[in-house]
């Protein structure tokens, strides 16, 4: 599914790009459209600019986070108890 819908946009590349804060508006809009289609979400055109803005802001937050040298042995805090 993702291979078909994700044509033209590589989510891994996007995450890497975000880390250098180079996610421009155009790339963010392409990502939003592609991923929305992939997850079965229809975004009416009037909500697209706000969605793209929010995605861009999220990317900036992620960039900040990925700039932090987190040791690879740090695990998420959530513990599943069977």
């Amino acid at each position, binding site marked *: 599914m993702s291979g078909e819908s994700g044509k033209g946009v590589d989510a891994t590349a996007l995450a890497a790009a975000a880390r250098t804060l180079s996610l421009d508006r155009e790339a963010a809009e392409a*990502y939003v459209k592609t991923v929305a289609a992939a997850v079965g979400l229809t975004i009416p055109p009037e909500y697209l600019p706000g969605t793209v803005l929010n995605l861009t802001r999220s990317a900036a937050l992620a960039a900040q*986070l990925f700039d932090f040298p*987190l040791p690879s042995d740090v695990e998420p805090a959530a513990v599943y108890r069977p």
Partner: protein
Amino acid sequence: MRAPPALETARRIAGGELKAADVLSETLARIGSENPRCNAFTRITEERARRDAEAVDRARAAGARLGPLAGVPYAVKNLYDIRGEVTVAGSRISADNPPAAADAFVVERLQQAGAILVGALNMEEYAYGYTTENHHYGPTRNPHDLSCSAGGSSGGSGAAVASGMVPLALGSDTNGSIRVPASLCGVFGLKPTYGRLSRRGVFPFVGSFDHVGPLAGSVADLAACYDAMQSPDPADPGCAQRPLEPASPALQQGIAGLRIAVAGGEYFEGYLTAEAEKAVATAAAAAGARERIDIPAGAEARAASLLITFAEASNLHQASIRRRLADFDPMTRDRFIAGALLPAEWVLQAHRFRSWYRQAWRQVFGRADVVIAAATAFGAMPLGQDTIRLGGRDMPLRPAYGLLVAPLSFIGVPVISVPVRPAGRMPLGVQLIAAPWREDHAFRVAAHLERQGAVSA
């Protein structure tokens, strides 16, 4: 006329000086005159309140033992289940749900303590914001200046207490939603340790960080309300099943033996306005705090908490995002859509960073029992304002209210926001941050600051 303190009302009812029914009538009259000004209440539960107040009066007449809050009026953010009422959670969408079949767990607890629920309070849609500029139910206004925000997302809770309509209110805090309105409205607010109080019957926002807690006009009232709500509840998977650890007995202990420090470093100090610096200095001086501890990575902690928030909130509401987009508040809608599209890697990194940040604070608590920081970098701003200049740059105003609170709910430590009231200025809150499960330490410092006259509602 302002609501008398909760504990004074309870004492006078227990002593036969006052009838709960009369206290309720006065409360409803105050709500009738004050609420049109600040729009804190979205629902008044008068019939239930009359019935409960009469039950308290009958119990007293029969010589029965009354609960610690018998006859005390209070209200809850409208994401708490109230039996027979629809839990709207600030939304148009959830207004179509059937009425709640039972009270939220902590509402049950307060009912057992004798408190009288008088209504439900306005909030940001689905708790997603800091200003309570609610598109569906109107903005809640700050009782100290009606042109200003009361904060959010528990804005109705802050305004209801600050305006004197009720002495106690319940809010919820995921990224600061109790402490921001407490700061802007000049009242006391407690976000307990994550897992301390049951969230059963409280509409969720972000399960990883959701907390419930009280707002009040005094430290003793805050502690009494918190104590009455404690009880392990296996039905909330986040509830830690701790034994009861009441805070009220700690209030008279003073601060001798407590190590109290100020949160230092670029993040916790860099955004502060002069008035926020002054509020922190006032609290620090009254608490005798001399040490300044550099807190690392605040910006990363906030970034991580927001990314998890976006993802979890959008997942929770994924059905509505697909079916009812037009019914969302325009203020939250685009955030809900974008949150459904985040790469998993961003969210997982945020969860891993959470462990790291918790460890960083464990080291802080090796040096201090209570850490003081501003709750908001500035006091209440006018409703409708979009930007603010902080640390030399323009920032979007609404998220900036949460800068100093979000990193702490992220790791679940207990925090009390205490109100500093500069003469002629809007109030501003100071956070008293304690180690997990040590609410009593924060309460001891809060009570000391109140006795010193450094903080007051």
